[in-house]
């Protein structure tokens, strides 16, 4: 279980995926990538087994720059490096969030 905070970077233990937390839940969450818990540091994430691969059903891939939302909308992540595994909260797959475009102001 992990207490997320906005702006925090997380790495996957099973693939190359990295994310940044855009929206955090007030509670601890069970956040996985490839079915294995994500962690704040690469060393922690891959410490147990550097050759972990995504589990079946957790291997649909992540896309660079996409936002992923938990089923209840409480957690939102931004994918900063893509990979072959997929993200889940409490074993429920996170889904790509449809974005509402803002007018370009810069």
């Amino acid at each position: 279980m992990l207490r997320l905070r906005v702006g925090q970077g997380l790495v996957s233990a099973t693939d190359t995926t990295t994310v940044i937390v855009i929206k955090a839940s007030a509670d601890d969450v069970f956040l996985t990538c490839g079915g294995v818990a994500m962690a704040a540091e690469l060393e922690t994430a891959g410490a147990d087994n550097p050759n972990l691969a995504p589990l079946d059903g957790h291997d649909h891939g992540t896309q660079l720059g996409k936002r992923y939302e938990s089923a209840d909308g409480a957690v939102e992540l931004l994918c900063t490096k893509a990979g072959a595994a997929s993200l889940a909260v409490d074993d429920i797959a996170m889904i790509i969030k449809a974005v509402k475009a803002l007018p370009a102001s810069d």
Partner: protein
Amino acid sequence: MNLSLLLDMAADGFGDRIVLGFRDGGTTAERLRRRSLAGSRILRARDADGLIYLGVNSPLFPASLFAAARAGVPLIPLNYRLGDEQLRQLIAHHPNAVAVADDEHCERVAAGGIQTFSMTTWSAALDEPAAATEAPDDNRPAVLIYTSGTTSAPKGVVIRHANLLSYVFDTVEFASAGPEDAALISVPPYHIAAVANAVTNLYAGRRSVILEQFSGAQWLALARRERITNALVVPTMLARIVNADDEDLHVPTLRTVAYGGAAMPPQVIERALRAWPEVDFVNAYGLTETSSTIAVLSPEDHRAATASDDDIVRARLHSAGHVLPGVHLQIRDDDGNPLPHGRAGRIWVRGAQISGEYAGIGSTLDPDGYFDTRDTGYLDRDDYLFVVGRADDTIIRGGENIAPAEIEAVLLRHVAVADAVVVGVPDDEWGYRIESAVVLHPNATATPLELIAYVRERLRGSKTPERIVVWDELPRNDIGKIVRREAQARLAHERT
């Protein structure tokens, strides 16, 4: 968080796309990453604690911004138009910085004992190979921008990595720009909009074309040649573009024009809307301390306001629109109590992009995280924000608080008036008395007495200037903000 993340994502996601410069020979995202690495290696090797940038905006500006970010030191863009003494004072705050400067300004920085690269040698140095390095992740200052000081001495605004990243993540979708999209950047590098432009366009995957020195004719020529789709201008630039009678204003690729940085004269935006009916206009309101834009008036809002018969909706053409999703806004009275819709007061804002931090002072946020913009404004019934003026500009005449912007708006509605400023001039009886200077349109005539009568008809007597003079031009800085101190000094001086 570190801004380098944006550049790494861009290089990973669309590394061979040209993100900077001309269609032919521009810089790709991957090359920009390599150049930022080379720059950060130099800054680390010299143990620099900042990177001063003194020159016109150029493709070296984003490269310098990201080099500084990766080295974990702030970019400090300084205004090359400052006098030697002012510049010396600012540089003295950064004895351990490295500087890059345009050729003609190198001597001015080096005189302060700072290691200085000319833009030419800096550019060559950025082409040296450098190994990939991790960027510090501890939310350091990313940029230090000195305020223009139109009302007080310059202050260094500290903008941290998390401020800028929040702004980008809340407002821009990664790689959302099409391959043909191109933004024309004409703001100077020491303005927060130049920083915001550099990061948002890169993250969107939109090519940035930089106009180093602005003129209306050059802006139009470059926009056509580089097939510009998006542009950001300050009001004085838009005025110069649309008021150039002899210019062909046709830019076939132009889709969006954002404007901000200073109050937009109604006549200018109305003229621009007529000149480019097919273009989407966006009014962006923000401050240096808020990491650029905090409220936008959208293209749909512009069209609705123009088409409406309802005065309240029509008025929104001159509003700042709605606050961004990540920003909370309160209008408060002078005692800090929230005010209801329709009541004007001080604009306070809260959000992850809001810095509110000054070098040598620290954070100025209140205990609830709100920042006092020192702008005055109000919200209409549907939460459209109207910015009335700067609290610091308020004239206290005989105990009455008078906002010069209200009087200026009336003067600007007079058919002969092209520009107007209203200031308080010290007065033995009233504390301050109201005086004004105006610029007339070419070939237009209006006597001061006529103008005074015109204001008195529309505002009450206590808000009518005692004296109005006609000048050839108003003192404005290069962003287009009126330098009120100068106007006030000149008015007081001319009287005696």
